[in-house]
């Protein structure tokens, strides 16, 4: 399958009439198909990154940096790992995905659009009044979301809850939770860490987007979380450290997580905040600020020209 073609078909998904339970309704027939082909995934990730830049610039606000750092992780999960059906979003056996670092939602919205959950055309409505694409994920506005997030430190607990429910129901779905590195400073993350291990939730897999930046500077300066892998180990999680921009490593880790029994897995993914756009990389200035129009053009150009 050629990515360019796939992309074109993707965006044919259209906003349809409103579903009873939601203000948005999206036709979810899509030509989505999964792959672990690195070349394909890199093309997809490139498009997702372009979406992120465009959406946030169009919105005039938002969090591009942490969306870009998480992009490869999300692309790997949705295209190459998770069991899900964009044309049947409530499929009971689907794997669950939670973006605990909710401010990174532009990446998720783009992924939803490009897998066919939502129409690509709605991406420019990000953060605008009435949009399903709220500044932080809100499942009331966008029922495709598994849960609303935005306040850091909640997502892993929610994931544990979904995993407990799955176990009760005899389902074998897995739960994936992406967290920020700054988010690790929230105590509730460590409560969830404790209970995930206590309940041996081996169908939970967390991923930390370790981009070494939070709002006010480096994580090391603001409130150091190192040694992070050791912390998760001590909290009883199978812990894997990887390069979060290397698809081989991501998939190897995800496979290892699936093979790990009796304890949940935490993947500590080293990433670059602002990944893919030279002037955004490792630049705390783009944590919570979008690019200007000129910067956007520059960024898109860079992304298009990158391999």
């Amino acid at each position, binding site marked *: 399958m050629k990515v360019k073609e796939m992309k074109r078909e993707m965006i044919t998904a259209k906003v349809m009439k409103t579903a009873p339970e939601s203000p948005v309704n999206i036709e979810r027939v899509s030509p989505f198909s999964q792959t672990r082909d690195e070349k394909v995934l890199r093309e997809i990730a490139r498009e997702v990154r372009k979406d992120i830049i465009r959406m946030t610039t169009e919105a005039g606000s938002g969090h591009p940096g942490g969306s870009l750092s998480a992009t490869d992780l999300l692309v790997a999960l949705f295209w190459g790992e998770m069991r899900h059906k964009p044309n049947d979003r409530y499929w009971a056996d689907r794997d669950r995905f939670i973006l605990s670092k909710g401010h990174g939602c532009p990446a998720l919205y783009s992924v939803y659009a490009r897998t066919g959950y939502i129409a690509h055309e709605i991406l420019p409505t990000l953060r605008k009044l009435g949009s399903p694409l709220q500044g932080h994920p809100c499942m009331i506005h966008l029922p495709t979301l598994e849960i609303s997030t935005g306040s850091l430190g909640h997502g892993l607990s929610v994931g544990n809850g979904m*995993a407990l429910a799955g176990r009760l129901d005899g389902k074998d779905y897995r739960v994936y939770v992406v967290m920020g590195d700054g988010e690790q400073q929230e105590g509730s993350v460590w409560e969830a860490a404790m*209970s995930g291990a206590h309940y041996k939730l081996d169908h939970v897999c967390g991923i930390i987007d370790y981009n070494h930046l939070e709002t006010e500077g480096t994580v090391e300066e603001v409130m150091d979380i190192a040694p992070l892998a050791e912390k998760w180990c001590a909290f009883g999680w199978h812990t894997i450290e990887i390069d979060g921009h290397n698809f081989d490593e991501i998939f190897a880790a995800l496979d290892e997580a699936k093979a790990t029994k009796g304890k949940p897995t935490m993947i500590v993914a080293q990433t670059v905040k602002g990944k893919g756009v030279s002037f955004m990389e490792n630049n705390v200035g783009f944590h919570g600020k979008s690019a200007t129009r000129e910067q956007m053009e520059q960024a898109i150009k860079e992304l298009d020209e990158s391999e």
Partner: protein
Amino acid sequence: MVKLGERESTRNAYGVALAELGEIHPEIVALDADLAGSTQTRRFADKFPERFFEMGISEADMMCTAAGLAVSGKIPFVSTFVIFGAGRAWEQIRNTICRPNLPVRICLSHGGISIGEDGSSAQACEDFAIMRSIPNISVIVPCDAAETKALIHEIWDKPKSPVYIRMTRNKVPTILDENDQSFHQKFTLGKAVTLREGSQATIIACGQMVAVGIQAAEELAKEGIEVRVVNMSTIKPIDQDAIEKAARETGRIVTVEEHNIYGGLGGAVAEVVTERYPVPMRRVGVRDVFGESGSPDALFEKYGLTPKNVVKAVKDLVKS
């Protein structure tokens, strides 16, 4: 005639009702934070160990885990003490239970100063205010064990939105309506129940203060002052019509609650009264101070939550 019957704690009735419901509805699960013996979820846990999740002393995690269970089709009943549930985990309730509007039942015990000897760190008198300020959630304060049971059976699966229930530690008299022994069985979310008629003022109470209101009304009756007594067990959505009716028909309202006089039942009633039919009010409650160690009765005496205080408030209004 309303009579005060046998004493039982509301938390006890809750535990019994929950264990009963668990039998019928497999989607019910329960969570607790190292206080299942006190909150009485132990009764459920013993019967349905695989549907009970002991979360340890991690209230924030407990609330969000409940959200994850709810969004997966379960009906979670979440319990701990009021201060640790509504308080410690307020933001989790707000953002991850109420914002996505999930059917979690937050059933907390040991509210108010009647927790007694443990003292002020656990004597939550802020929960009505802090819970009712959150959109989507219902706030209920049952007056006795019988009402607790009836309401748990009523609300277990409806509304489809979050529900907060405040219970207390101590044993409280069951309120018996001799004309209608079973009035508790009619518990309806959002409907106030008039327990006694009267024309000179209305006492609107909730929780164990309903019994205090009844006692006050009886004392007042001896002095020829006839007051209505209303059990306002649902603080949100509040029964605006019952309040307006009380204002119109009795012209004076006294609220009684085991809660700060700011922002709770009294505040909720005052909001309706001023909008619908302004009449003079008095709010009997804890007067914006922290409690302390002591027996529930000694504390009610010291902090002004006795029939005497209600009588005084009513007289104050009647003569002014």
